[in-house]
């Protein structure tokens, strides 16, 4: 037992120095050198394109229904995460019903992605179909022709990556930033 103590302590401390400090610090150095924009959180002046934001009113495209969007409490950081509501949860039925009614009230067609919440609670994306479902609403409210909005959505649609990985999607912040420039 005692003879094993020295290698155990030395290895535990050595691993701490190598994997706990040298490895992440070297990784941070490389990242900041080669990919500073990504390493800092893909920030634009209106927020990170990787972090969903709350959008209300008919003049903006809406993202996923992330009611507990942890970062939307002004200035207070919370934890990311999904609703964790099960597939037979009454609470989920009520939440979806409320979200759908809210979307209908402002003139958007509630799609499955728009009324459900994501796994992260900060999903930055919607599918092009989700965006198209909001085109009449946004067009009516902003006066921008539907055709132009549809073209905008198509230009900003990315994926599938490598031509086949996963679905296509639109980043809501990028879409709304482009929309703001059109006005």
């Amino acid at each position, binding site marked *: 037992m005692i003879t*094993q103590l020295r290698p*155990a*302590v*030395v*290895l*535990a401390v050595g*691993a701490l120095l190598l*994997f*706990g*400090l040298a*490895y*992440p610090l070297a*990784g*941070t150095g*490389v*990242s*900041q050198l080669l990919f500073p924009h*990504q*390493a*800092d959180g893909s920030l634009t002046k*209106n927020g*990170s394109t*990787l*972090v969903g934001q*709350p959008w209300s009113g008919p003049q*903006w495209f809406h993202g996923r229904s992330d009611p507990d969007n942890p*970062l939307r409490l*002004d200035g207070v*950081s919370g*934890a*990311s*995460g*999904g*609703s*964790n*509501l*099960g597939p*037979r949860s*009454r609470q*989920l*039925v009520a939440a*979806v*019903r409320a979200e759908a009614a809210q979307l209908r009230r402002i003139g958007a067609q509630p*799609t*499955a*992605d728009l009324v459900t*919440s*994501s*796994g992260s609670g900060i*999903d*930055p*994306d919607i599918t092009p179909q*989700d965006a198209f479902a909001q085109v009449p609403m946004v067009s009516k409210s902003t006066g921008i022709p539907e055709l132009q909005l549809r073209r905008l959505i198509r230009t900003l649609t990315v994926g*599938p*990556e490598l031509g*086949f*990985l*996963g*679905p296509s999607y639109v980043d809501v912040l990028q879409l*709304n930033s482009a929309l703001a420039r059109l006005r």
Partner: protein
Amino acid sequence: MHFALTVLLLAALLALSWRYLGSYLEAVYSGRVHWLSWVERVVYRLLGVDPGHEQRWREYAVSLVVFSGVSLLLTYGLLRLQGQLPLNPQHLPAVPPLLGWNTAVSFLTNTNWQNYAGETTMSYLSQMAALTVQQFISAAVGIAVAISLVRGLSRTGASTIGNFWVDTVRGCLYVLLPIAFVAGAVYVAQGSVQTLAGPVLIHDVLNGATQLIPRGPVGFMESIKQLGTNGGGFFNANGADPLENPTQLTNLLSVVLLLIIPVALTYTFGKMVGSRRQGLALLAAMGLIFAVWTGFTGYSESQPNPAVAAAGVVAQPQGNMEGKEVRFGVLDSTLYDVASTQTSTGSVDSTPDSYTPMGGFGLLTGMMLGEITPGGDGSGLYTLLLFAIVAVFIGGLMVGRTPEYLGKKIQSREVKLASLGVLVMPVAVLVITGIATALPAGRAGAFNSGPHGFTEILYALTSQANNNGSAFAGLNGNTAFYNLAGGIDMLVGRFGVMFPVLALAGALASKQTVPVSRGTFRTDNATFVVLLLGVILIVGGLTFFPALSLGPLLEQLSHGRFF
């Protein structure tokens, strides 16, 4: 269909890693890889270890225990002292004692069960020096134990099974570190955060929202989290968080990373015992279960979410999107979660708690089979070898002949040890789940009502005993009861299997090899694979069926009812 191409690409990458990484691993653990020998030499001198010294199984186990004890104390100490230590830009206070215990055990045992939200609990130093470190070490220890068992099978009349210190150091240096570093850079290039600069406050003039965006050294933790089949993410949402797993490419990279070592180890095993077909037979058993479970879970999740449909949104073109990210979609999300639950990784890119009843059943049962399809780094191979020994024993009973595996006679001691190793996990899961449902403190943890609430409890204790770490995360696990019970569950699930494995390695190493004869039951053909699958499914199925029928099965059958 796009998804078929994704699966093909994954299969091709795994085939390559099976062949080449598997071969490389064999060379690493046989001591034929030297490109970091100058580092190794310094390390052994500091440790005071003679790399040429071989250990008997008891000495190997003692080294493992002492090292684990020291690591546990160090991790716990760092978590408790984080308030006084540097690299804590959010000025987070010490992690409370019981949560610190659960978390330290969790990372030590390669479980990475998280009763905390990383971005609001852990300082950057804790994430790096306490948690990331264990993500390297626990994976290397798992592989070391697997290799020592394979040595036991391949040696004849030997008294030793290798050197714990050498195996652990070599696994870290030659395998985990280089792959994790390269993959970490890819994560960051795709958008994972990697900075020490602390959270950033941004005001959006378009919608008036102000967000405090959490950041940290994420990308390089992400790579070892997957490669080491650990699963403990930097942020609470784990692989669903876009700052951790930003694109479809990183999503696929994650699936690849968490599968490559467990898959490659079957090649390593074959090469070490002198027959690649033996490794291929194990891989076939793993692959068949994995493929069926991926298909079943993917199909289940492609069905509409009943609650969303009941709320009037009937058109759900992709299937159940509650708890899933748009950039991954349903099928890629389920592939990730299935791979993660069946490799004892436990990171998730979609919320298991919101899966359909049968989708959740797929994830839960993937763990209940014992994390062998292909299982965690090392732990998958050694647990599957226990099942293989039980399988040849049953085969031997059927034909009335002393069973052999790879020329080793499987006798009373070996069968006892293998059975012990196989039964530890189900006993831990069922006993502790029973206690949890009997006590108010256990029942209080459930978030959803009805059968789903029971599934949350069962899932938590299954996940921890299997050192997986994924969760039906609605469960409130940060309570005295779950922190304590979960810690015990994880320790039993890890060391309760490792000790029988090491004892078995010692017992097998000392045996002579029996020459192959016409009466030898072959373990490298389809008959054996079917027998092995039968043993795995019957042990898993019969043990857990009653519990499953109270959870996901009951929920699936409750058509039209909401809780």
